[in-house]
């Protein structure tokens, strides 16, 4: 299992041909208290860089972009009931959606943990 990161502060956990995607702890700390999360529909095909989800704090709405191309195979329904999970466990329980990876070569453009740590330093 590998965890990769985007410059837009998303994380991807890669297991076989499935990527689980969420936003980083750094991202949630910048957003502040999350009050609403809108997730993509299961079965939707997302292109890399397409707006896939929306996370709203008290003050503002932010898009979450698909970091890679793929089909949505599962979304985290817990976030609808408890958006504050994004603040309390961004890297774990507050995953957003799972994609079936269309093109593994797209993973090559993403950062590993050390590179992401340098990116946010």
């Amino acid at each position: 299992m590998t965890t990769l990161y985007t410059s837009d502060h998303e994380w991807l956990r890669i297991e076989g041909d499935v990527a689980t995607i969420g936003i980083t702890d750094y991202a949630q700390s910048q957003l502040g208290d999350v009050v609403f999360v809108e997730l993509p529909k299961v079965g939707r095909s997302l292109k890399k860089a397409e707006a896939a989800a929306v996370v709203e704090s008290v003050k503002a709405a932010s898009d979450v972009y698909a970091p890679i191309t793929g089909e949505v195979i599962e979304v985290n329904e817990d976030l609808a009931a408890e958006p504050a999970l994004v603040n309390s466990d961004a890297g774990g329980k507050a995953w957003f959606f799972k994609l079936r990876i269309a093109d593994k070569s797209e993973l090559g453009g993403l950062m590993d943990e050390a590179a992401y740590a340098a990116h946010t330093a």
Partner: protein
Amino acid sequence: MRAHENSPLKQTPLHALHLARGAKMVPFAGYDMPVQYTAGVLKEHLHTRKDAGLFDVSHMGQLVLKAKSGKVGDAALALEKLVPQDIVGIAPGRQRYAQFTNNDGGLLDDLMVANFGDHLFLVVNAACKEEDEAHLRANLSDACEIVSLADRALIALQGPKAESALAKLCADVSSMKFMDAGPRRVADIDCFVSRSGYTGEDGFEISVPADKAEALVTALLDNPDVLPIGLGARDSLRLEAGLCLYGHDIDTTTTPVEGALEWSVQKVRRNSGARAGGFPGADKILAQFADGAARRRVGLRPDGRAPVREGAPLFADATSAEPIGKVTSGGFGPSLNAPVAMGYLPTALSAVGTTVFAEVRGQRLPLKVAATPFVPNTYKR
């Protein structure tokens, strides 16, 4: 509104204190202002409703209007040339909400006017303060002296424990009622105190000399009931209280009637009042008092949990192509644990309970017209 983006940001006398308290700073109306502290918007909002919050609003404009005759009544009569409110009727030691109107009946700014006995004390919005001062000078200089109090800070202390917190520094405040205003000694500092604010809570606004502001704020923050609150929670608090934000919910294109601010225009300035009219745009505004206006500001409650934000177009139903209005303020109300908004609708669709639709990210979301304030206010009347 004035574009300040190209000039360097100004700082309030409390800037260093904000940084020391871990504030996240943002540009606002030309000032570097705290949007939140380490607690975050949600906790700051809820703390203000439960205990007490302290806000730095020193970016706002503070002005003195003094009649050359020396009579406060002459200053009041002069100001009535620029606002549709009854200023003459503000008793000494009292304050009233007002608006500067333009010749089309639109609003140049909204403001507070207090009668300090021998002069009027005005508090105006930060983004409009230079224009407001110029407007006063251009129109009232023959009868009045206009003094900008740029050397004073302004803080707001809001919430159910505001009175007990301020009473430790000024015994006199407990006897004040909502909209009482005047000079008071607070922590041995010469201040102007009004029992008012912008959160829907009981509370006070305190004008303090700039060089004493940090000492006063530090004394207030020594009380564990009082937390510093940023502009983020100030916005969510005022939105839940149904209070207008100038430049968003009201502006030069909205009249007091369209803005649902009829309550703020006293009968004496309306048709058949003793001092009816006589302010810019009076023809249009008084005609709207008689005949109604085509559109009206309303409170809106989205059905779901998704916030509907400023700028979202409003539609009569789920499919129609033509918008009928738009959202002017919207977000999440932490005390309601639900989204809240305000916007303009055709008057025929402005009744409480009417369902309309907002377009958000290509989807039509239902909202209901709702009474404001969304959260009941707790003013000490």
